[in-house]
């Protein structure tokens, strides 16, 4: 049933990596001196006072970039199997992938021309 035995190491890695923050925080909790002054409750104990909340309204440009990124991320995921199986697919597969890419390049040019990729 479980044919990929290599994933045991993956689980071990996962366990170790999830232990790292626990151990780090736990050790510092044990080692550091306990103090409960008002200064230890601030964001930066010996830095500047932060002004305003951290949850400010984001610029819409972030959203546009994320939007374009989603589309091309999906495209990458679609093209990856093609690249892996390239030697078996031959010329026909190449042409078909070319059509796929050509259609999406039109989308990229569109996004570019309409200013969705511009920051200022």
């Amino acid at each position, binding site marked *: 049933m479980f044919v990929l035995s290599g994933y045991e190491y993956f689980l071990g890695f996962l366990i170790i990596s999830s232990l790292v923050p626990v151990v780090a925080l736990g050790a510092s909790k044990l080692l550091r001196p306990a103090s409960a002054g008002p200064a230890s409750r601030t964001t930066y104990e010996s830095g500047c006072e932060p002004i305003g909340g951290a949850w*400010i309204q984001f610029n819409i440009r972030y959203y546009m970039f994320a939007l374009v990124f989603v589309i091309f991320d*999906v495209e990458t995921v*679609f093209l990856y199997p093609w690249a892996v199986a390239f030697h078996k697919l031959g010329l026909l597969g190449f042409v078909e992938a070319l059509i796929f890419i050509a259609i999406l390049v*039109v989308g990229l040019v569109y996004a570019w021309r309409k200013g969705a990729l511009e920051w200022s």
Partner: protein
Amino acid sequence: MNLAEGVQFVSLVILGGLMIFSALGVVLLSNIVYSAFLLALTFISVSGLYILLNAGFVAAAQVLVYVGAVNVLILFGIMLVNKVEVFSEVKNAWVGKAATGAVCAGLFGLIGTMVTSHPWAISTAPAAGDKAIEVIGQHFFSDFLLPFELASILLLVALVGAIVLARREFLPDLVAPQQEALTLPERPRELVAAGVRDED
């Protein structure tokens, strides 16, 4: 139970628990930003389940697309509208919640019974293992070619539509300087090639 099966079982329990609790958190927490981060956790545990099912490529795609792109988009969307609104308490809200819960529980019971009672025909073909990506690639270019190519049109129109909806229409009389920093100005209509707008 050998080591591989034990590892699989432990991973299944951990991932399943993580998935259920983070999904409940997405629905039940009132702070939408926490919900969005928990949604990412749900996606990651789903991708862990895919690994357990020997679907490494799907797991990678899940992390890349859902956690890396879709969830970031959701977070940006939340931060974009970031308005704190106080909703008035709905009277007898528990009736709706109880009804929803009952319907969901009933549906879960029905599907659960069906899943456990049906003798599923499990494929006897050997698992593709590390060759899976290659097999997927071959399917993409033979029997799933049509949906594959159609997906490119779907992605294109999604991109075009998203840009059309997300960009701000260029309205010379309405441009306020303080708004400009937060919104994406559309180019003048001469450049974006829209039609003539005549007076009527």
